[in-house]
């Protein structure tokens, strides 16, 4: 089954086209690297796929659901890692994860175990009870990664997942966000050397909103 299928996708902000005629077919379990300069529409594409932005035109299907009309069908099946960690600064890491776990309907009895596992996986057990406002950008990113995979999503939409992470942090993140376990991934990156080897397809976006899809060259 195609996890993502786009035909002639457009997204405009007023007069300016952020995405123009984007076409793409990504099968379940495949990884897509999205490349392009600043302002090329990479984050916009991710937000459209995450159902957070409505397409201005064209056709978009994500996990079999037609966007935007059937967006409700894919909520809870997507893990979205953006520039913002989507964490409340006045709550601590554990409280934030507990909040997201409840919003995603994780069984009350399973929440603490899942959170402890993820915090250990990103090396955040010791700082999990500190308020997010008191954490460094790298630690917030580690917590955001936990939030992104907390509900075991089928599709990961990752916007520069390595931002703010040190070398050990990148390795830990790879365990949770890597291509294994049949998950479909869309990774926006400015670091093609790191992500191209694990990508099945590459989408290059240009500043004028146009897109070019190729099979990954370095795989």
């Amino acid at each position: 089954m195609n996890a993502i299928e786009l035909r002639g996708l457009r997204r405009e902000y007023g007069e300016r086209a952020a995405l123009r005629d984007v076409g793409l077919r990504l099968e379940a379990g495949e990884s897509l690297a999205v490349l392009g300069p600043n302002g090329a529409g990479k984050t916009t594409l991710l937000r459209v796929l995450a159902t957070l932005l409505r397409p201005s035109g064209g056709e978009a299907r994500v996990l079999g659901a037609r966007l935007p009309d059937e967006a409700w069908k894919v909520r809870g099946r997507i893990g979205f890692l953006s520039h913002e960690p989507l964490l409340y600064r006045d709550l601590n890491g554990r409280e934030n994860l507990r909040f997201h776990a409840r919003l995603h309907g994780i069984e009350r009895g399973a929440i603490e175990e899942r959170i402890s596992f993820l915090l250990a996986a990103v090396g955040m057990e010791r700082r999990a009870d500190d308020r997010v406002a008191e954490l460094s950008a790298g630690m917030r990113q580690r917590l955001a990664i936990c939030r992104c995979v907390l509900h075991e999503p089928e599709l990961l939409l990752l916007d520069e997942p390595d931002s703010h992470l040190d070398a050990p942090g990148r390795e830990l993140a790879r365990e949770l966000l890597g291509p294994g376990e049949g998950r479909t991934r869309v990774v926006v990156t400015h670091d093609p050397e790191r992500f191209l080897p694990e990508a099945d397809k590459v989408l290059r976006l240009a500043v004028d909103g146009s897109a070019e899809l190729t099979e990954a060259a370095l795989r």
Partner: protein
Amino acid sequence: MTAEAGPPATPVVPSTVAFRAILGKDLRAELRTLQSLPAMALFAVTTFVIFRFGLDRTSLSGDLAAGVLWATLLFAAILGINRLFVAEREEGGFDAIRLAPIDRTALFAAKAAALLAYLVVLELVVVPVFAIFFLDSAAALAPLALVLLLADLGLAATGTLISSMAVNSRARDLLAPLVLLPLAVPLSIAATGAIEPLLALGGPGYHRFGTWLAVLGLYDLVFLLVGYAVFDFLLED
């Protein structure tokens, strides 16, 4: 398109679970930071002091007492209303909630409940101060509590709706009161109409009290239903 029949949608999380999670998060954050309630209470008490010296009166009754009390509470409420969705806007809460398999009206209900809780706590603090400053007797406080609770419910519904619209504007501190105050006119008429006889000189009276309570209840119902009906659309991009 080849993906005609995708896997079934994630089951929607029960609204009560989402409601409790969002409300609990908001109350926990407020208890930890005290960003809204102390400012609201301080504003209200300061306003009473200004009225006391500005009017040069140690006792108020009837329509003047009702007007001073309600206007002060309404403007103090605006401080809380302005901040109601700030964390959602600035810390990505809107995105997180829109990504979750929940009925978004749970967000409206939880925010309105949080605002209602702020208003009730505010009144528990400042109405006794008002009574000390301006009232000769505390006999009206019990029926006054009923009026204020009904008025708070309407203000919470309207305030939540307006706050969710204004928070995306750079002029949100200006926009929220500009839109809210005209909408609160019927609420203000009914609230002061019910409070006025309660604070009458010589003790509480109940002239048309039931009518004003019914108007307050109707206002609450209308704005709760409007909020339920339109809130989902307000969260779209």
